[in-house]
């Protein structure tokens, strides 16, 4: 891994951690959501600071280069995150639909009474 790549990794992981912290500080993020990003940025910091960890697993899996493994890990984690967000979004759409219908039905009931 080149010095530049490591520098980028370290910088990116620190920025990621900081932005998560700022969002929490401004009370704009739920802790449940923050947990993923905190763990994710920790992983990035660990890998940036201690690349031997990555080299070890690259050797273990007989992969071509550590970068391949790094990308594989990150893509997989983001894939999992996108998937879980998609599930959550569907649930939220359903909730909004239910709420809208509930309000409209209540309104109709109110008007009926008049």
């Amino acid at each position, binding site marked *: 891994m080149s010095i530049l790549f490591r520098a980028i990794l370290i910088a990116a992981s620190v920025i990621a951690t900081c932005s998560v912290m700022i969002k929490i500080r401004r009370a704009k993020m739920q*802790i449940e959501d923050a947990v993923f990003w905190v763990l994710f940025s920790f992983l990035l910091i660990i890998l940036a600071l201690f690349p031997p960890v990555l080299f070890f697993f690259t050797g273990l899996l007989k992969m071509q280069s550590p970068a391949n493994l790094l990308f594989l890990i990150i893509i997989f984690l983001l894939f999992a995150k996108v998937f879980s967000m998609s599930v959550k979004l569907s649930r939220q759409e359903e909730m909004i639909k239910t709420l809208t219908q509930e309000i409209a039905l209540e309104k109709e009931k109110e008007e009926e009474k008049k």
Partner: protein
Amino acid sequence: MNDILVIIPAFNEEANIETVVGKLIKNHPDLDYIIVNDGSTDQTAEICRKNHFRMIDLPVNLGLAGAFQTGMRYAYRNGYRYAVQFDGDGQHRAEYIRPMREKMDEGYDIVIASRFVSEKKPNTPRMLGSNLISTAIFLTTGIHLKDPTSGMRMYSRKIIEEFANRINFAPEPDTISWLLKNGAKAAEIQAKMDLRTGGRSYLTPLTAARYMIRILLSILFIQNFRGGNRK
């Protein structure tokens, strides 16, 4: 009007709600209570209506934090001085509400019905988790809570207001830890708890592990960055 509100969040508690609330009304007719039905898909709401229980019926499922916050908003709006979190599954005993209140009157913000003030903690995996959380809270606040995961807690008016109006106020140990760090005073009184009488707990090893990671990370790390801004 009574100045204590018992908040009973209920999600799919058809097996327990009638007994739990019936017992509460019979043994403690002087207490005000409110059931928050968290969008149950079973007969919980029907049972409450049939028995003329006081209930807020949420049209969708918000989860425990959202349901409990609804109860706290109700307490805040209606000017209650104290609010108690009380499970709908029958593991909490209403007889401890009085002693909790007496403790509150000594000037505390949070009183926890604790299983381990004078009793020893048994050595079970569950209690290992409880010990870890205790240690985490001690490390960040310097205060030793013996039973941080007890779900039966009483809150003062000041804390009710925070719960009612702010984000990230789930009735979980990490919120307690944050409150303690910000100067809230907490006390514990010895209490016995019963095993849930019916239905099933949603604590599987996997959810327990996730819960632990979330709570510990939150107490040890995330809460340090939390600001005091309003929603």
